[in-house]
């Protein structure tokens, strides 16, 4: 983001371990446990959190067009308080809308780490879910869940904008159920 010097370097190895993902999940849940201990306050914050999901404004591939269409006049995702922000610092939802290649994997993890907690990830479309039609290719990450913890998967190639909204509503349900 901030020029060449400020990008933390993340190394990815195709090895037989998945240490990172449980660790991140754990961090997430402990973070949530810390905040809003009070029974009175917690539902309020939970309500706020699920009704105001700011996705990261970035387009990876085909699904990005449907992602944009969902913000268009016909579906208008802003009805649900979903407003894309360009800076990861202000986001709480990363919608991985397209094929993730090994070249962009570092950047994706960096962006994920730049988002403040609590944060969620939606894998939109088949490429993000499992590599889709390109999963055999030499340059494609077969599923973004290999890199960051994914909360909701949306099937479709690409998913219709309605399906994307459905995924966001599913995530809202998830947030409500997980913490109350």
């Amino acid at each position: 983001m901030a020029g060449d010097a400020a990008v933390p370097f993340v190394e990815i190895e195709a090895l037989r371990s998945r240490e990172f993902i449980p660790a991140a999940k754990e961090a997430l849940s402990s973070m949530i446990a810390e905040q809003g201990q009070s029974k009175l306050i917690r539902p309020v914050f939970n309500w706020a959190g699920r009704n105001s999901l700011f996705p990261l404004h970035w387009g990876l591939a085909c699904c990005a067009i449907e992602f944009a269409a969902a913000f268009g006049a016909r579906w208008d995702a802003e009805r649900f308080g979903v407003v894309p922000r360009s800076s990861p610092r202000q986001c709480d939802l990363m919608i991985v809308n397209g094929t993730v290649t090994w070249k962009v994997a570092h950047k994706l993890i960096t962006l994920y780490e730049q988002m403040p907690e609590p944060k969620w990830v939606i894998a939109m479309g088949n490429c993000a879910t499992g590599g889709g039609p390109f999963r055999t290719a030499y340059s494609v990450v077969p599923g973004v869940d290999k890199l960051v913890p994914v909360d909701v998967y949306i099937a479709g190639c690409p998913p219709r904008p309605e399906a994307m909204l459905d995924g966001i509503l599913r995530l809202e349900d998830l947030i409500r159920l997980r913490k109350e």
Partner: protein
Amino acid sequence: MSEMWINMGPQHPMTHGLWNLRVRIDGELILDVDPEMGYLHRGIEKISEDRHYNEVVTLMDRTCYVAGMAWEHLYILGAEKALHITPPERAEYIRTMSEEFQRIASHIMWYAAFVQDLGLMSPFLYGMRDRDLLLDLFQSYTGARMTYEYMRVGGVRNDLPHGFSDRARKVLDWLMERFKEYDQLCMGSDIFRRRCDGLGVLSAQDCIDFGVTGPMLRSAGVARDLRKDRPYSVYGRVDFDVARATTADVTGRYLVRMEEMRQSVRILRQVLDWLDRNPGPVMAENLPRWLGAPYAPIGREGYLLKREYPKGVGFAAIEEPHGEAAVYVVNEGGEHPYRVKFRSPVYVNLSAARKYLVGYHVADIPPIMGSVDVCVGESDR
């Protein structure tokens, strides 16, 4: 501020996709740029070598996700030449129609993204709204909004549904009104004109040297349009003009694209009339048996043994919404293409970025890159 490099991308609102523009700036002045590609390189050329001829079509929609039909058309033209197959006439007309619809949809998508770069918010939504109408039309005869999988070697999958042309004409009438509105929002606005005039100039000679094609080239005064110069499908039989401007700047590209949309409407009206009058088959009769779409169990073991395959090389080039796209299909006798090589117009247009960016301001990068109409899926393949 002294000189510094900034990275615009891969996550940056300007990029409209995954690529990185490294810019060396002094204050607000651009001194040097270096586009970094490959963030969306999905190895489509390699995967195509492992797929049957018809199955490659599913990749083509995803290659250029704003102009899927055009790329399907391109690939099918190349594959048909490599396999020595001639499609029926009605299929050619339907393909032409699809490509022109796609051209309008792609240009509207460009418009939406471009004006958003300039800070204009409502035209983005108008554009997306009007594009949805075209996607509805696509959906009504292909069954999907963006990834159509509609064309096949030897024809198209199915015929148009009942009442399609009436709906299409209604949409075209609506769009012609909307184009006026688009013009009022952009050309009618003094701020817009001052923002775009004389920006990102790329002269005709530079365009030719750097292989730049499409609306960028035509805005520089060169009326090269493969639909006219080297008519494929049925473009030789329809009447249209090549849009051309001479300013070679962002305004010129805007005007060219707007005029192209109007010309596409003109083509579409003729093609729809023809389609109404001439029913017929949409799939070639004499397909090679082993191609046998859609029933042949191609994956089945042993099915492809003991076959005679024709050999051949197919080259096709079309005027895609972004520019000149070409494909080179090598058929070495087999169920899979031996090699598929694509030429993406966006890829080449981006490679000349240094020519049209250096010397302008940082604030000019979004409109200039917006006027190039970047589709990274196509350029990285």
